[in-house]
């Protein structure tokens, strides 16, 4: 059914060996633009390994991964991010000593151009629209004069690209924090955030890099049912905004409820692929999950 759609990510016969251990064995599947694909499997099936191959942490022994018809394997993590792949981490990896909004701004920075020289000298000026000019709103006469000078100079010389990018980054970061529902915590240090907010912050940070594909690695780990439901809605909302989502998840109910299609791995091999309904009835999947059926249901 979905095969006429445009392929965004193509995992092509990927095999990965660590010494004698075969972590991934000839895994192939495709991800289509605009869908939510679930990647599931019992513990140790190779889900996260597969993820790491896709995001450039490991190089496959053979086979390759195409993203947007470009080869992804062998590229450095930051290059893969620029190509449009963003991810979250199973074990949260924020920048703990930075505030929430700064964490997200690191993500927005990846689409900006200002670097060391631009930040130092700020010579690259850009003309700005009147509504973006600095405001004159102080009641203190001295400050007001200063604001007028700033406004006039911005009118004549424009603003530096650094300034504009900083503002755009801040605005966008706030929007993203609002999207995931933690904008009231923008100025708190990441390490002081509650667990659930840290997970949400990771999603906001990943979205800030303007990805075409968002990979979520067990985003619901440690969530209670109410939080899972919120996450469920958030993922749909993200998809509706035009992102493609790859979801690795342990929680079967979440996966079944939110994904369009599911790929099942077991012992490094793909054992099934299909819609949630097909997967639910697939005997191989049932067999693979039998040992875990208690917590999977």
């Amino acid at each position, binding site marked *: 059914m979905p095969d006429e759609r445009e392929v965004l990510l193509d995992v092509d016969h990927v095999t990965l060996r660590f010494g004698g251990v075969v972590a991934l064995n000839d895994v192939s599947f495709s991800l289509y633009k605009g869908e939510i694909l679930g990647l599931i499997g019992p513990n140790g099936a190779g889900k996260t390994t597969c993820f790491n191959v896709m995001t450039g942490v490991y190089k496959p022994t053979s086979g390759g991964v195409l993203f947007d018809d470009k080869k992804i394997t062998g590229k450095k993590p930051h290059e893969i991010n620029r190509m449009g792949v963003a991810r979250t981490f199973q074990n949260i990896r924020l920048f703990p*000593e*930075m505030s929430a909004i700064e964490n997200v701004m690191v993500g927005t920075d990846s689409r900006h151009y200002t670097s*060391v020289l631009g*930040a*130092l000298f700020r010579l690259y000026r850009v003309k700005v629209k009147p509504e973006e000019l600095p405001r004159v709103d102080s009641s203190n006469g001295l400050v007001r004069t200063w604001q007028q000078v700033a406004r006039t100079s911005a009118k004549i010389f424009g603003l530096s690209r650094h300034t504009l*990018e900083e503002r755009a980054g801040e605005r966008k970061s*706030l929007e993203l924090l609002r999207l995931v529902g933690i904008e009231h915590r*923008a*100025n708190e240090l990441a390490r002081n955030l509650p667990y659930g907010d840290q997970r949400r912050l990771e999603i906001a940070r990943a979205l800030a890099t303007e990805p075409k594909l968002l990979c979520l690695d067990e985003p619901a780990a440690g969530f209670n049912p109410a939080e899972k439901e919120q996450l469920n809605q958030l993922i749909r909302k993200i998809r509706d905004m035009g992102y493609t989502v790859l979801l690795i998840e342990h929680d079967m109910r979440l996966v079944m409820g939110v994904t369009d299609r599911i790929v099942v791995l077991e012992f490094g091999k793909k054992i099934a692929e299909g819609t949630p309904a097909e997967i639910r009835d697939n005997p191989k999947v049932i067999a693979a999950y039998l040992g875990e059926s208690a917590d999977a249901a």
Partner: protein
Amino acid sequence: MTETPNEGRLSGVSNFFAGVGNRWRGLPKWQRGIGFLAFVAFLYYLPLLGVPGLTWLRTDSIEGGNNWAGVLFTCAVYVLIALGLNVVIGLAGLLDLGYVGFFAIGAYAVAIFGSTQSPVVKSLQDKFDLAPEWAITWAICIPIAIALAMISGVILGWPTLRLRGDYLAIVTLGFGEIIRIVIRNSTNWSGGPAGIASIPGPQGAPSADNHIFGLIDAKPWYWLALSIVLLVVFLVRRLENSRVGRSWLAVREDEDAAAVMGVNPFKFKMWAFAIGAALGGLSGFLFASRQGFIEPNQFNANLSILFVAMVVVGGSGNMAGAALGAVLLAYLPERFRDFSEYRFLVFGLALVLVMLLRPQGLLPSKRRARELKDRQEEVAVGA
């Protein structure tokens, strides 16, 4: 006199500083601006310090004490070093134990190209039939010194910044020592163990006619160095509050996560290293200009560790902390003469105690998160 800080006293001192810092950050922006200007004015006034009750601060208030303005100049040069090393250690989280190498390169750049006594200048004179007074102008030596230090930083960083942090420490430690050995051995261009004299200042080669930047009156030198320090503070602040500063912080906190978020860790580490090297070169340049004479043994490896000590003890990642560390380190041995024999010992001890009891240093870096709050309010107003 040697301080024996126990945990309580140590945190007492820094609680005092932290309290002052919090109060300071709580003030409105314009009051902070005025306070800062007053502080800067006081710094410029410092060499003339004659306020009753404060004159005991002057190093010439003790018998045989050194020229007060000269000590202030040394303090300013050390602060410049601390600011540079703070970029490397404090912001980017790279432990550079060979910072003295860049300092030496900057110092030797002005000596080799600017002094009429240097073998390089002499051979240039011979080759192009130039007058014996000819040498490269002091002002042109500034970019040369910075560029040479920066280039050597890049050459050193290229292979080593990809390695684990602890390897970087060892390689840089070796680097600092190697620079000294190379300079000492290369008699044909660096003057070898004898050193190079007649290093120029802003008014050219040292001579009795230099009324402003002469050998005796150090006040203009101090004002020059202070101005450079303020300029550097301004520039480094710009970096801190930009994408660059955020990237450094992100790489320091979690390099892999930063890379996955699109930060090129190698690029930003390299920039930090190069900027640090450039500032090291600049401070070496100033040091050599004022001294008029340098020799390889002034740049031994212990200095590198002393530099690390001033950044770390003061508070790495925080310019005020690093500067405080530098001033303590340069000033205390001058004011308290009995102390100077023990200074390496005391600062080594301080390093260990700070690491064990208060790893964030006397003035921990707390500024960034707050700063953003200010800006965020602006955005909220602007939106």
